[in-house]
């Protein structure tokens, strides 16, 4: 099903979350010809400040971040290294509690991790070293109660094939290269076919070709199941390709710089995409 975008709406500045939300609703009401589609956001992040408290220091990773993710969004978090993207994703995953603000999923506050929000971590050690590639994927499916037995095996094999690791299906993680490990994690995340997929720089360790293949697989999967994905990346090009909506974060501590609409995947390479890339570039690196 082809993706269609309306021309970008005029941008509006906003100072704080309550006001933004008000205007937002207004905007919604203005486009009242599709009122049902506004709905409630699937995930709402409201004024979230995230901090790491260590005995010696207090590091603020993100500061009063607001955004809403709607059903079937492909929401990209883009920002400089150390701006708190991973931290934000972990908070949404339920691993961290905000010091300030609230994270709500379907209206309920996020309190703990769960298989409804499948996470692909940035770290290479996210595979269970005592399980082979296949077992790693199967275990995710069975442990979370998603699938059992032969079904799980089949689904695992299918997704491992998608990431091109069928040859290594019975290898243990320590026998894989960095990129291969990340691909297993991607296969695992996608095989879970979760409502919300949280991906933290999943393609960073991949070469251009493999990365392109993985991106296409992700988009294809999205076409098929219309899950919601939150995707962290540091590649602007990738953000535009993967995302329908892009959140730009400013450097440490991460604050919302802008929230932009992307162009459809088909429009990659068109002037619209190039223009968007330039805009993002300017915003991030402009000063």
């Amino acid at each position, binding site marked *: 099903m082809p993706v269609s975008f309306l021309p970008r709406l005029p941008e509006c500045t906003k100072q704080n979350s309550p006001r933004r939300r008000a205007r937002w609703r207004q905007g919604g009401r203005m486009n009242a010809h599709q009122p049902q589609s506004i709905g409630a956001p699937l995930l709402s992040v409201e004024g979230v400040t995230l901090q790491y408290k260590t005995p010696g220091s207090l590091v603020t990773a993100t500061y009063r971040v607001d955004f809403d993710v709607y059903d079937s969004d492909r929401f990209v978090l883009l920002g400089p290294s150390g701006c708190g993207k991973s931290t934000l994703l*972990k908070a949404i995953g339920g691993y961290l509690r905000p010091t300030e603000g609230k994270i709500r999923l379907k209206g309920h506050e996020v309190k703990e991790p769960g298989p409804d929000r499948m996470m692909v971590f940035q770290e290479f050690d996210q595979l269970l070293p*005592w399980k082979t590639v296949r077992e790693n994927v199967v275990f995710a499916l069975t442990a979370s109660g998603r699938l059992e037995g032969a079904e799980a095996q089949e689904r695992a094999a299918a997704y491992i094939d998608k990431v091109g690791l069928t040859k290594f299906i019975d290898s243990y993680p320590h026998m894989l290269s960095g990129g291969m490990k990340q691909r297993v994690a991607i296969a695992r995340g996608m095989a879970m076919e979760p409502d919300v997929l949280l991906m933290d720089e999943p393609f960073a360790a991949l070469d251009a070709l493999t990365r392109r293949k993985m991106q296409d697989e992700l988009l294809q999967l999205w076409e098929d199941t219309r899950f919601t994905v939150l995707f962290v990346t540091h590649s602007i090009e990738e953000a535009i390709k993967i995302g329908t909506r892009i959140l730009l974060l400013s450097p440490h501590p991460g604050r919302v710089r802008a929230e932009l609409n992307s162009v459809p995947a088909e429009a990659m390479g068109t002037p619209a995409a190039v223009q968007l890339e330039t805009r993002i570039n300017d915003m991030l690196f402009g000063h």
Partner: protein
Amino acid sequence: MSETLLLRPEIIKPDTTAGDVQVEASLSWFERIYGIGAVRKAFILLVLAGLWEAYGRWLGNPLLFPTFTETLTALIDNIANGVIPQRVLVSLQTLLIGYGIGIVLAAILTTLAIGSRLGADLLEALTSMFNPLPAIALLPLALIWFGLGQGSVIFVLVHSVLWAIALNTHSGFRSVSNTMRMVGMNYGLRGLKLVRLILIPAAFPAILTGLKVGWAFAWRTLIAAELVFGVSSGSGGLGWFIFENRNQLETSNVFAGLLTVILIGLIVENVGFATIERKTVRRWGMQH
């Protein structure tokens, strides 16, 4: 820019397929023999046995420290007449029960400890208090609760393995990387399931060390406990065998008993634990 660059032609190779590679076998005779673990170990054992024999002979005090050959003869005699096998069976049975209970209790304690702060404090407090306590501290309670004989010996055994295993396991659990833990929680695993499916395998090297230390201390304690707690004469395990022979100054029998402990230790290590290691932590690339 260094000028060399200017000179270098580019190279394009047609797509070739990889052929087979013969791993060179140019190792010397010595290296190849040396490469076999069993040979190295056997060599070490032979050297140790040789040292023992030499020292024993030089000492010339068979009542205090018999030679290796005397000990070996005594061992063979006692195996032939069935005494040692029977005693070993009794001891092994007690040992395994105590060891097993110790493992279970350690599992419970560490699970509690990883589950809540109070649990962790409990484990820490109990370990730091009870681990240094010698067996005599337990004697009165053992007498009251289990009477004499196997029950008490097992109680003391549990005391000797529990804390070491719990300490190692707990420290192993705490060393599990946050990412791994998060992965498990992501699957919806909590509590016992998280421990069983994520923490135990992830902390397996540490747990295995705990099991090894626990195993060794179980033996030590068993031998000592059989003396302290007494068994009705006639029954009893290897510890009792050693004690009896010691009282009768049958020193070579005493050392035959100890040699049995050593041999069992070697077997358990090289067949038991080594196999487990090979099939788990080595295979998983968690130990090098």
